[in-house]
């Protein structure tokens, strides 16, 4: 278990956050959320509820039209290496090998060569891809590509890990494997995680708290936080009655019909 060391971590403060696109479509409004340092928060909701918008604002890819976001006390003004993003479609550089993809972030920080190699090897090993370090992304399965993407972000030692439906394109078995691994990685690194997903089960399995978002342009109500459900299950046995009770509770909230304010 010596592959991973505790990484950096930061708290997140979101207040009065809103996003209205040109043309007046309000994707999201009045989102308030505080995430503690080291916490794993999942965001669930139907398509168009603004959960991906929220994540993209946290990443700095989009600017909010109202409110503010602070990560580790610093306002977010654009993308940066303190906030690592794992995309659903991996976003690996196809012309770089697994090793080069993972070394990309450390190389931008101009770390000494030996340190870059050490960090790179460590995180490739942590996701179990040592044998494939010389391969290119196109030579790997989807699950393996997503492992590379996770290693690439972790090698950059982010204080906040943002994951946008990262396992949505994977088959069920691979998905379960990666969920298990992500839990383990989070236990080891204690990096704060914001995890956007369609799957309530995935959210309950992984998260300390589940943020339920509803609304969205198609409902005539901007996307907003409907409820925040703490998951206080000692063990995350997806077949246990307690687990399913939490799932039912969240499912009911996800399907709440939003009413115009």
């Amino acid at each position: 278990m010596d592959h991973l060391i505790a990484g950096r971590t930061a708290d997140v403060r979101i207040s009065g956050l809103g996003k209205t696109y040109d043309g007046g479509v309000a994707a999201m409004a009045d989102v308030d959320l505080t995430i503690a340092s080291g916490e794993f928060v999942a965001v669930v909701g139907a398509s168009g509820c603004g959960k991906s918008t929220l994540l993209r604002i946290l990443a700095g890819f989009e600017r909010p039209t109202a409110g503010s976001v602070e990560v580790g006390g610093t306002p977010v003004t654009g993308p940066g290496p303190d906030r690592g993003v794992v995309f659903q479609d991996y976003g690996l550089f196809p012309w770089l090998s697994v090793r080069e993809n993972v070394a990309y972030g450390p190389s931008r920080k101009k770390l000494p060569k030996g340190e870059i190699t050490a960090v790179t090897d460590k995180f490739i090993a942590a996701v179990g891809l040592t044998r494939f370090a010389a391969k290119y992304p196109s030579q790997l399965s989807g699950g393996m590509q997503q492992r590379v993407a996770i290693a690439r972000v972790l090698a950059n030692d982010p204080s906040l890990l943002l994951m946008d439906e990262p396992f949505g394109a994977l088959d069920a078995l691979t998905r379960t494997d990666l969920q298990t691994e992500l839990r383990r990685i989070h236990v080891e690194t204690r990096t704060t995680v914001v995890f956007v997903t369609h799957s309530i089960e995935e959210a309950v399995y992984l998260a300390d708290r589940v943020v339920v978002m509803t609304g969205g342009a198609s409902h005539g109500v901007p996307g907003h936080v409907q409820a925040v459900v703490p998951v206080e299950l000692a063990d995350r046995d997806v077949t246990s009655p307690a687990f399913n009770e939490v799932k039912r509770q969240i499912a009911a909230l996800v399907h709440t019909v939003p009413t115009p304010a």
Partner: protein
Amino acid sequence: MTTTAVPVSAAVPTAPAERRPRRKGRLRPVLLGLPVPLLFLLLWHLGREGRWELPFGIRMGFLPYPADVAGGLANYVVGTRDNAFSNLLWEDLPASAMRVFAGFALATLIAVPLGVLMGRFTTANALFDPMINLFRPIPATAWVPLVALLIGYGDQASIFLITLSAFFPIVLGTISGARQVPERLLEAARMLGTSGAGTLLRVVLPASAPAIVNGMRVGLGLSWVILVLSETTGVPTGLGSTIFLARDVVQTDQIVVGMICIAVAGFLSDRLLKLVVRLLFRDRPLIK
């Protein structure tokens, strides 16, 4: 940490899928490629002998025999006839190749950075697009009289015309490549700590490499066309100059020899470019 849960080996091909044994069918295309050129040579010979008159007013009686051309080629390369063209290839080829290389390299150095900027920034595109569209339709032939007055004849005029002509396909290829870079890769680079300018170098450039190379190959082919044009008058050495010298002394075999040499030089330079690209990228998979 263990990774027993990872069923990896089955999912990964041991080699890129497109690499399969090719030895078997290699002879067939070579054999199939032979009959048509041989028939062409035969008809050429017969046409010359029979002084055929063909459509377009082609009078084949004025052609050299293929055998004469072969002799002229030998003389041009190793000096078998002891005339003005003996051994001349070794003066002409370096002179012409230097002009093509200088013009093409200059065009690439200007066109690639400009194309990257124009492809990524609307401001840069708005600034340069009208100018490019204004100049692009002007054929190099139309530039020749002006260039003759402004620069004169010689290496500089030749290199200028080649640069001008090779510039457009390269810049257009680069622009289209830079525009098609997946937004996701730019986001990935930014969130990993790449600066705005850094993404141009580390993402836009490699992601547009195939489009840039395509533009460069078109530009290089065009460079040889413009080389001949630029050597029509007043340039003493060069593959093109020799063709026009041969016309002036009515040595048709030498004209055809010059044509063949330019074809071979153009073909070889394209192969050389492809080789350089291959050495540069090795087996790296690039975006299609």
